[in-house]
């Protein structure tokens, strides 16, 4: 226990130790004494508006709200005295005056706090005979359904928006009977954490729209899992309907699992609603083989033999193993083992990057080895370099917001696009992709007290201020976002960031793509590393080289070439000319159907088991939540079979925990011998001399195969537009709202354009919306021209 003096109080005759300043309800919760409540939530501020937690405190002549009453030494609290029970019954009757008794059609029925509390503490009768209040429903977008008549004005959702999401989207208007929870102006809830109000709402006023009327809480079995979308690895529960036949099992919803060290009580909307993709009609049901241009369903055995036959005489130089970081650690480990039989050296998982010249200097895995997510909250100043962490890793961004709220941290930013943030910002510097690395290298020079070479005044001034702040702070952090890593000069950016962190005494963390990038580094899904950081005899070719090959052999593991890669068009054209393409995937992606020779159906994340390693290096295992569906198989089973076909000595384990244990043991014994090559001194970086560069910003709801197929999330996206600064547009004689032709190295597309003053000059941006294919590189140069005669 801590050294803090504790206070002793008495609740219902039970003596309870409390910390000074604690509320009675928190002390009672810790000791398992139940006090009914609606507005109180441990993660939100206390308002004491519902009065449900009234308790009888000795020496007080009226009942006091337990959530707002601070403990004092010798306090005697009774929750079951006549006074307390009388108060509870009266409050319950009062709350039910306007609450409709439509529990049978309410989605909250069966898990409703109001239902539970009225059963436990209500009187069961009422004198109220008059008409009940009705309230018009709000349209909060495709994710959250509303029934505002059921609202009991606990204001949890309002406080959540203010305090946690940092977007006060909901508010309370009016008084007494006229109180309304509303969005003030009509708009949908757009916060990346907004789905959490569904869990917070104690009644059925805010419920999940995709789950609406689909089931009841008592039907579900709950399975613990790890989020397959971002590098934080949120803990969550899949709620699954177990029907008698396993074909009918399905995930009906996802809810957070509280974990203080990772995601606290929240999960992002992407984690919450992506389950809809599991039921998508493109799910692969049977192994498929292309025979004279036509797809045929084959048995697993034939498919595996066919894979073996295809790879039999392939030269190792010409074989490329490309894996998506959504795969589990075990799958990656076995993928490597399997392709090691063919002496393959060309592995890669860095689908969304294009510059790898610093790969040898990287640590065992990116992310951070000496930082926990909780420690982010204690940082005094933070510098964000590139990317939109809020969309890419919402729970990481939540920690940064907590830092600004609780420790008054200053968050500075250097970025290529002006992303909206949900916390007060320090110095900001928005520069074009051409200038991005150049500006950063200028800042490094400022940190070394050198004269910054020809930086504009504003950026050198803010750079100096940021560096001063980072140096002055005891605890500071530099966060390298995803788009900084998909920048064409990303290796220089990484070097500078490392240098800058060293100079200013900051910690450095890299936000990575997918849930298991760290796992991919550890298991050697890289051309220059063997598993556990060992050095290979020959260094293979990285992914950009891989896509430049003609008549090569590709093994794609959970990769949708046109949608997952830095340059989708390049990947597609490589596959078009490929000798042989073997794909492992859960879905029949059109691009795979066009180019692959064999597609093996993998089980989805829910039907799979494995381990993800998050950016802070935490190994998080999850088990199979439901049996595999159709004729798909978990990846680790398939890969073991393939290994076994090649060599009878290869052991087949039926239990994944044995496999995970083996990997963990090898990691512990082998990775300490990893010798890290010191980072090269970064050179001064010149700006890129492209006239116009485009930042094709990937929406977080397009990040992986599962979320791309989740219908409700896709509905939240807007139509893609080309955003451009009016001054840049002038050079190309483009008018606002005009359709423009965008030409990249390989591809020409047409999009409507819109003027936006926050876009830097010499740069354009596309926020990827409804279009499923936008074959432009993530960051690359383009040329623009207006489409004649179009005035839309």
């Amino acid at each position, binding site marked *: 226990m801590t050294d803090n003096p504790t206070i002793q109080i008495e609740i219902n005759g039970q003596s309870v130790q409390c910390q000074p300043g604690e509320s009675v309800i928190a002390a009672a919760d810790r000791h398992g004494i139940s006090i009914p409540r609606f507005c109180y939530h441990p993660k939100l501020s206390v308002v004491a508006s519902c009065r449900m937690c009234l308790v009888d405190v000795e020496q007080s002549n009226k009942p006091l709200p337990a959530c707002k009453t601070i403990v004092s030494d010798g306090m005697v609290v009774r929750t079951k005295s006549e006074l307390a029970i009388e108060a509870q019954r009266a409050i319950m009757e009062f709350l039910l005056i306007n609450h409709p008794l439509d*529990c*049978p*059609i309410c989605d909250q*029925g069966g898990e409703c706090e109001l239902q539970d509390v009225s059963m436990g503490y209500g009187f069961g009768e009422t004198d109220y005979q008059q008409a009940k209040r009705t309230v018009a429903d709000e349209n909060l977008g495709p994710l959250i359904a509303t029934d505002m008549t059921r609202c009991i004005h606990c204001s949890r959702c309002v406080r959540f928006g203010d305090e946690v999401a940092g977007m006060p989207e909901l508010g309370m208007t009016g008084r007494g009977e006229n109180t309304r929870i509303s969005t003030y102006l009509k708009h949908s809830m757009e916060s990346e954490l907004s789905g959490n109000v569904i869990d917070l709402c104690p009644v059925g006023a805010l419920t999940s729209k995709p789950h*609406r*009327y*689909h*089931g*009841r809480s*008592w*039907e579900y079995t709950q399975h613990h899992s790890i989020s397959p979308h971002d590098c934080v690895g949120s803990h969550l529960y899949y709620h699954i309907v177990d029907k008698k036949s396993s074909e009918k099992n399905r995930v009906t919803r996802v809810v957070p699992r509280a974990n203080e060290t990772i995601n606290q009580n929240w999960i992002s909307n992407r984690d919450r609603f992506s389950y809809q993709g599991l039921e998508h009609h493109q799910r692969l049901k049977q192994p498929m083989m292309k025979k004279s241009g036509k797809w045929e369903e084959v048995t697993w055995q034939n498919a595996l033999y066919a894979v073996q036959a295809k790879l039999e005489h392939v030269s190792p130089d010409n074989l490329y193993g490309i894996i998506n970081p959504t795969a589990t650690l075990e799958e990656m480990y076995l993928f490597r083992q399997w392709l090691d039989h063919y002496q393959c050296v060309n592995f890669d998982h860095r689908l969304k990057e294009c510059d790898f010249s610093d790969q040898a200097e990287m640590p065992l895995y990116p992310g951070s080895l000496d930082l926990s997510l909780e420690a982010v909250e204690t940082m005094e100043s933070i510098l964000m370099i590139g990317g939109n962490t809020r969309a890419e890793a919402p729970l990481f961004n939540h920690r940064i917001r907590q830092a600004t709220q609780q420790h008054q941290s200053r968050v500075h930013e250097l970025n290529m696009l002006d992303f909206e943030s949900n916390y007060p910002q320090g110095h900001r510097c928005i520069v074009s992709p051409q200038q991005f690395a150049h500006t950063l290298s200028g800042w490094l020079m400022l940190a070394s007290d050198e004269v910054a070479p020809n930086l504009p005044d504003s950026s050198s001034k803010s750079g100096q201020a940021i560096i001063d702040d980072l140096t002055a702070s005891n605890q500071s952090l530099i966060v390298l976002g995803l788009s900084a890593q998909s920048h064409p000069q990303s290796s220089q950016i990484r070097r500078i960031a490392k240098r800058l962190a060293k100079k200013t005494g900051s910690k450095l963390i890299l936000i990575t793509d997918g849930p298991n990038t760290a796992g991919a580094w550890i298991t050697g899904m890289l051309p220059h590393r063997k598993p556990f950081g060992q050095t290979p005899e020959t260094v293979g070719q990285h992914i950009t080289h891989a896509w430049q090959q003609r008549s090569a052999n590709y093994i794609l593991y959970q990769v949708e070439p046109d949608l997952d890669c830095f340059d989708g068009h390049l990947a597609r054209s490589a596959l078009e000319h490929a000798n042989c393409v073997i794909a492992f995937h859960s879905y029949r992606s059109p691009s795979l159907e066009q180019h692959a020779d064999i597609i093996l159906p993998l089980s989805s994340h829910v039907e799979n088991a494995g381990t993800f390693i998050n950016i802070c290096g935490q190994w998080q295992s999850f088990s199979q939540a439901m049996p595999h569906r159709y004729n798909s198989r978990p990846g680790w089973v398939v890969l073991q079979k393939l290994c076994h076909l090649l060599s009878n000595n290869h052991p087949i384990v039926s239990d994944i925990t044995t496999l995970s244990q083996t990997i963990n043991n090898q990691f512990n014994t082998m990775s300490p011998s990893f010798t890290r090559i010191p980072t090269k001194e970064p050179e001064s970086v010149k700006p890129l001399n492209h006239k116009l560069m485009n930042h094709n910003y990937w929406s977080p709801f397009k990040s992986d195969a599962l979320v791309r197929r989740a219908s409700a999330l896709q509905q939240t996206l807007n139509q893609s537009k080309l955003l451009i600064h009016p001054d840049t547009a002038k050079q190309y004689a483009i008018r606002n709202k005009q359709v423009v032709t965008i030409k990249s190295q390989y591809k020409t597309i047409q999009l409507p354009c819109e003027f936006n003053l926050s876009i830097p000059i010499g740069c354009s941006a596309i926020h990827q919306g409804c279009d499923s294919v936008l074959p432009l590189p993530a960051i690359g140069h383009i040329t623009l021209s207006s489409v004649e005669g179009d005035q839309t």
Partner: protein
Amino acid sequence: MKIIRSIINLLLFDFLKGLAVTGRNFIKPAVTLQYPEQGTIPKSPRNRGALALREYPDTGEERCIACRLCEVTCPALAITIESQMRSDGTRRTTRFDIDTFLCIHCGLCQEACPVDSIVLTDLQNYTIKGRGDNIMDKEMLLNIGRAYESKIAQNRQDNEPYV
């Protein structure tokens, strides 16, 4: 006495007495009914026979709101429900199956139903002729409800004082 008794026995008096009972009953109208070929037997309004789903007679709208209370209360797990939002935004079942092999006619579903949708009719003689016919789907149940609506309503009204 012994002699008198012997004479009576000799005259078969007891035999005739017995025959008289037979004779009387032979002439009396019969109370036994040949079920199910013959006549209708009186039934309690609470009789728990075949299940049915009811509709509102005035609008023809189904009563069921897919609350799933019958499904969860059923001790024999005979009911399977799947629900969805109908195009008009109301909560409706897309599937409502009762496995008549499992159903034990306990009537708990009827008691749980908040809208008096699922009821046990007094229909007792229904037969299952083929494998698979034991599953009564939503349409069948609604048809039974439609056909016997007046009887169901009458029974419920008769039972009202005892609820």
